[in-house]
C-alpha cells in the first residue's frame, strides 16, 4: 500500500511580505529625498546658470543679478580641496601603514592611537575650525612670521593653506580607516613571499603591499573629498572671506568659497526675492563642483583598478 503525501498548499508568508515591503519603502524614501533635492535645485538653478555666471568675478554688491558671478568661489573651493588632499593622503596612509604593518597589535600605544583616530572622527567640524585658528594661524603662523621677520604678517592670518590643513585634520580619520581596511585585506602570504626572498619590511610594503592597496587608498581620498568639499564650518575662521575683488594669488591669500557663499546669499541679502535665483544657481554650481571632484577621483581609481586587474 503506497501512500503519497500531498504537499501542503502554499500559504501567504506575512512576515516576509512585511519586511521586504519595509526594506523597499526605506529605499524608495532615500531615493525620493535625493531626487527631490536634485530636481528642485536643477529646476530653480538651471535658469541662473550661464557661462558668464561661472566665469565672472562678482562686484561687491553681489546680491543683484547684474553684479553676480562665482568664479572665485569655484577656484577657492577647488583649490582648498586639492591642497587638503595633498596633505591628508600621505599623512593618513603613513599612519595606516604604521598601525597595520609596524605597530605591535594590542600594545597600549596602538590602542591609544586607534582611540584617538576614532575620537577625531566624532569631533564637530566647527571645533576643527577653532582648532585651526588656534593652532595653525595663531601658533604656527604667528611664530613663522616672527621667525621670518615679517612685520606685516604673511602666515599669521587666515589663508587657503590653513583652511586646507584644517580640513586635512578633519578628514584624516576617514583616510586612515579606509587605508587600514585595504591593507588588512592583502593576504599575509604575499608579505611572507616577499620577506622570504630577502626583502626588507619597507621593500615589501613599497613593492607588494602599497600597489595592491592603491584602490582602497583612493577610496579614502574620495570619501575625504566628498566630506570636505561642502564643509564650511572648518574654514570659517581659517581662510574663507566674505568678498575679494580678485582671485587668490598664493596659498597665503584668503579665498571665497561656494559653501560659504551660499550661506552669505541666504542670510545677508537685502532683497531675498532678487537673490533667490542667484542662490539656487550657486547651490547648483556647488553640487557640480563636488560631483566633478569626486568624478575625477573615481575615474582615476577605475583606471588603477583596471591596471591591477590586468595583472591580478
Amino acid at each position, binding site marked *: 500500500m503506497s501512500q503519497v503525501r500531498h504537499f501542503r498548499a502554499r500559504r501567504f508568508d506575512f512576515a516576509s511580505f512585511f519586511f521586504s515591503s519595509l526594506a523597499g519603502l526605506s529605499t524608495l524614501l532615500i531615493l525620493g529625498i535625493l531626487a527631490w533635492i536634485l530636481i528642485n535645485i536643477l529646476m530653480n538653478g538651471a535658469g541662473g546658470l550661464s557661462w558668464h555666471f561661472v566665469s565672472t568675478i562678482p562686484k561687491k554688491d553681489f546680491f543683484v543679478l547684474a553684479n553676480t558671478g562665482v568664479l572665485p568661489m569655484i577656484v577657492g573651493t577647488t583649490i582648498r580641496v586639492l591642497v587638503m588632499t595633498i596633505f591628508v593622503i600621505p599623512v593618513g596612509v603613513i599612519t595606516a601603514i604604521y598601525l597595520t604593518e609596524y605597530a605591535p597589535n594590542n600594545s597600549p600605544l596602538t590602542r591609544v592611537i586607534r582611540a584617538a583616530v576614532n575620537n577625531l572622527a566624532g569631533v564637530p567640524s566647527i571645533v576643527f575650525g577653532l582648532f585651526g585658528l588656534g593652532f595653525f594661524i595663531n601658533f604656527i603662523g604667528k611664530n613663522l612670521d616672527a621667525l621670518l621677520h615679517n612685520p606685516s604678517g604673511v602666515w599669521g592670518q587666515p589663508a587657503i593653506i590653513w583652511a586646507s590643513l584644517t580640513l586635512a585634520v578633519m578628514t584624516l580619520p576617514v583616510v586612515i580607516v579606509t587605508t587600514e581596511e585595504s591593507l588588512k585585506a592583502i*593576504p599575509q602570504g604575499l608579505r611572507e613571499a616577499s620577506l*622570504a626572498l630577502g626583502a626588507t619590511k619597507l621593500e615589501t610594503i613599497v613593492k607588494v603591499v602599497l*600597489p595592491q592597496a592603491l584602490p582602497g587608498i583612493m577610496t579614502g581620498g574620495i570619501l575625504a573629498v566628498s566630506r570636505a568639499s561642502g564643509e564650511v564650518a572648518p574654514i570659517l575662521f581659517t581662510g574663507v572671506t566674505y568678498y575679494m575683488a580678485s582671485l587668490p594669488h598664493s596659498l597665503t591669500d584668503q579665498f571665497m568659497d561656494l559653501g560659504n557663499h551660499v550661506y552669505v546669499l541666504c542670510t545677508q541679502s537685502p532683497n531675498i526675492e532678487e537673490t533667490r535665483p542667484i542662490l539656487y544657481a550657486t547651490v547648483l554650481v556647488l553640487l557640480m563642483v563636488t560631483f566633478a571632484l569626486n568624478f575625477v577621483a573615481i575615474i582615476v581609481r577605475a583606471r588603477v583598478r583596471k591596471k591591477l586587474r590586468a595583472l591580478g
Partner: protein
Amino acid sequence: MAEPILQKIAVAETHAVTAGSPPTSPLIEIRNLSLHYGSSRALKDINLLIRERVVTSFIGPSGCGKSTLLRCLNRMNDLIDTVRIEGSVSVGGHNIYAPDIDVIELRKRIGMVFQKSNPFPKSIYDNVAYGLRLQGVRRRSELDASVEKSLRRAALWDEVKERLQTSGLGLSGGQQQRLCIARAIAIQPEIILMDEPASALDPIATSRIEDLILELKKEFTIVIVTHNMQQAARVSDDTAFFYIGELVEFGPTSRIFTSPSQKRTEDYVTGRFG
C-alpha cells in the same frame, strides 16, 4: 649537556647510507631547539642534522610542529610577536639566531615555497625577477637570462615563454606553485624550504612538483614538510617524524618507512593514526 641518543643513531645511519657516494656534511644543525607561542610550547628540545644536497622531509600529524620548525630555519617565525626560541640553529657552522646575523641576508640564502601558492599580482617575468631586483640587478640582459634559467629549472619555461608579461595569477595551481619555485631559485639560495608545496594540487601537478624536487636536489639542499607519506617516501632521503612538538624519530627515509624503531612512528607511517 647530554647528547640525545636518538640523534647519534640518526647521524650514524645517514652516513652509512651515503657511503660510496660523495660525503655529505651536515649543512643545518638544530641543537636543543625549543619554541614557545606565548606560554604554550610548540617545539620541545629538537636535535636534528640536515645534510647538504639531499631531500629531508618532516612528517607528522597536524599540529606536530613540523611547519613551525621549518619556519625556524629562515627565521620566518620572527614575524610573530609572541614567539620565543631557545637553542640554536646553525647553517654552515653559523648560528642563525646569533645577534649579529643579518636576517635579510639569511633569507636570500634560504629560499622558501609556501603551502598556498602565493605569486605576486605581477607578471610572470616580474615574479621571477623580484628577488634579483631587490639585490639591485637592473641590466635587462642579466634579468632575461636569469628569468629564463630559473623558469627552465622549475620546468615551467615551455609553458609560459610566450606569455612572460601576463599575470602570474592567470596560471593554474600547479603552474603557480612552480612559478613560486622559480622565484625562489632565481636568487641562487643554498637551501630551499618547502611547506607542503603540493597539498593543494591534483595528482598530476603533484607528481610534476615531485619530479622537480628530485631534479633540484642536485643543486640545492631541500627540506620539505608534507602530510603525504607516499610523497615523503618518494622524494626524500632522510625523514623526520614529529609528534606533538617532539622529534620522535629521524633517519634514512627507507628505514623510517620499513623498519621504524619507535612504535609511534610505525603507527603513523602504517596509517594507524594521523
